[in-house]
Every structure is written in C-alpha cells, then in structure tokens.
C-alpha cells in the first residue's frame, strides 16, 4: 500500500534512523530519502524506507489522519494497513 506512515526521527546512525511511530520505535533506512535527516525531523516511511522528509511546519496536518486511524479497532482495513506499515522496519526481524 502506498499510504506510508509518518514518524519522528530519534537517532541517526549512517543510513539507519530510529524512528518513533506513536511510541513504537523502529529502524528505518535512509538510503532513498533525498534530504538530510536529523533527530527531530519527521519522515514518511514506506515498507521500511524513508521516502520523504516532511517539513516540520506541515507535520501537524499530516499526523491528523493517522491519529484518527490509529484510534480505530483492529478490524478497520485502513487502520490495519497503517499498522502493517508501522511494522515494516528497515532492520528486519519482527520485534
């Protein structure tokens, strides 16, 4: 799915970032993002790779949809897709 999921970068070590998704920390790969990424930035994660750094002044509206979705039950299809995307780490190994 192409929705992707935004998260906040906590640490950067080379091409791996530790990213926080509503309390879940995942390793996300930075190979394909075209802007420098530092702790505090938000990125859009798709299947374990950051594809875009999201400007901080615009992150609020971007997060809104996801926060609404994550309040949904596990049955909701779109919410389930977002949860799958959060599980999609770049470091492998399901934590």
């Amino acid at each position: 799915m192409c929705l992707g999921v935004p998260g906040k970068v906590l640490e950067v070590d080379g091409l791996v970032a530790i990213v926080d998704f509503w309390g879940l920390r995942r390793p996300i790969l930075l190979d394909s993002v075209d802007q420098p990424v530092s702790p505090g930035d938000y990125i859009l994660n798709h299947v374990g790779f950051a594809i875009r750094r999201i400007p901080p002044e615009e992150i609020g509206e971007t997060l809104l949809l996801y926060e609404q979705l994550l309040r949904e039950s596990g049955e909701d299809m779109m919410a389930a897709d977002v949860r799958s995307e959060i599980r999609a780490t770049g470091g492998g190994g399901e934590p």
Partner: protein
Amino acid sequence: MAGSLARLTRQIGRAPVSVMHVCGSHEQAIAKFGLRASFPRNLNVIMGPGCPVCVTDVPEVDEAIVLATQGVRIATYGDMVKVPGTVRSLADAQAEGGRVHVVYSIAQAVELARETDDEVVFFASGFETTAVATAAVILRGLPRNFSVLSAHKYIPPVMEIVAEMPETRVEGFLAAGHAATITGWGIFERFVERHRVPVVVAGFEPLDILAGLVKLLEVIHDGRPRVENMYPRCVTREGNLRAQEQLWKVFRPVGGRWRGIAHVPNGNLRLRDEWAGVDARRRFRIDVTGLWDSAPSALVQDCLCGDIMAGIASPTDCALYGHECLPETPVGACMVSSEGTCKIWHQYGGHPDLGGAP
C-alpha cells in the same frame, strides 16, 4: 468544499462528469470517510488501476506458486498470498506444503534469507513507491540465497492506456501523492499534453482529497488542461531524484499485461541485465505450463475485476460481488487486497449513484 464541487459540476454542465483516481489509499479514504455522500450526484469519482496487488497478472502469481512447489521459500507482502493464479493462490500452495512467508518489508525477507541456507525469493509487488525499496535493498547487497521475482508496476504508462480506452469517459485524473513523491509531478506534463486531460496530485487526508477534486473540476471547467500539485508538502516538480536514480539503476520498464486491463507498454518493472544474478526468473527454471492443465474456476469468467480497474464498471455491476465473491472467498483480485475496489466497498460501502447519475 462540497458546495464548490456541486457548483463546479453544474458549471461544467456535462452530466455526469467522471474523474479517476489511481490509488487504493485514496479509495480507502473516500469510502471510509463517506466522502461520496458529499459529492454531487452527477460527479463520478472512479477508482482506476490503483491496486498493485490486483493488477499482478495471473502468470506472475503462477511463477511464484511454481517456485513454492519447487521447495523455494517465498517471501511476500500479505495480500499477495491470497491472489488467485490460474488455478491456485500462494495460500493454496502453502496449504500443500509450500513455504510462504508474509513480510512487511523486503528487509525482513533478507533477514529470513540470512537465517537459512534455503533459497529465498522475494515476490515483489507494488508501484514505483514500493519498487524503490526493492531497488535500495538490492543495491545494498544481498545474501547469496536471495533473489527477487519482480511484479512491480509503473503507474504513468497505465494512465495512458486508461485515457485512450474508448469506453472510458474520464475527464481528469487525481494522481496519488506518494507515487508522485518519487516521480515528481513534472512527469504528468507530457501526459496532459498528449491527452488534453488535467492531472491533479492530491494527498490522503479527506480534506486533501476534496481540495484535489475541487481543483480538478476547476481545471476541467476552465478548459486549460494542466498539472496542479495540491500536495506540496510531499511532492515537488522533479520528485525524489535519489530514489529515482536507485529505481532506474535496478529496474527497466518493459511491456506486460496488467490483470484484466490490457498489455501496458512500459508498465512492468523488471530487473536490468546487470542484476541477472539476483533475478529469480534467471536463477530458476520456472515452468508454469503445468498449472494450465487444470481449468480455472468457472466463476472467474464472470469476474468484472478488469472492467472495474479500467473504470468502466463498478463493483455493484458484478453479479458475483457480495454473493460468491467475498473477502473470505475472493473470486477476483479486487476482493483480495485492502487496496482493491471491491474489498474497500465491501468493508466501507460504495456509492449507490456511481455510474447511475442522471
């Protein structure tokens, strides 16, 4: 915003006005948040071929099934397991002893390969957004027992096909924000020039989608087809150049069939010759003809999935929808994937007026 849609649809004056989006996430948001209830009756917002799992062609699924029956471990994204091939799905192959692993990312498939000596094939689906991840992992270097069976698809060429279908009356396209994050919105300029239909790039919030539709109707109304970017927080004109470089270093576009739709020139992404060593199609002899001895289910002939993805039918036009074809027992691929029109409508409800507006 709903008022603007109604006013613009009235001003355009042709009824109905049909526009197409090409993204399962757009359809999920439209259906889930009930946006169609705020659309004017004579505006048709149709989902086109925006579900990568759904357009994975039958022979591609057959290839993965043959590999699974040869003892190769298959790793793939969840919905791919249930997509029907000629006679079976990967789930059926798994039930018969094939080893099929669902992963959330290709990196997890690589981890799996590192933990075993068996051959692991990643059955890769998805549009350009997802293909970038496959490319980046290949460029990182792979374990010796890992290869890729690419069913990746490239969206821009299929828009050409849909725009040229004589049955389609699409007057404008809503392009998917995250695919355009990679390709940039500039890629649609030649398309607009050739087909004289506007393209508006839109994000995924309900408001993003409504704003995208309002802009699309404005451009249809003013009669000067062009590309408009309504998702500037993620999409630039040139796109993500680094991701594009990775994508085209690993993949080349080749013509191939999209399930139920058409042969799409340059619509399939296959590994370049330099990557033959990690291309499952060259590493293994994959003979799918054995699967063709059994006849496919008779129901398959009545499945309208292709017409639905081409935008010329809606799920409710299909006699199987909600009867023989259900999420638990899908006949067609559109009922399998969470990005498939039929499954989305089945969960969230569709639009009673779609296709029937006066």
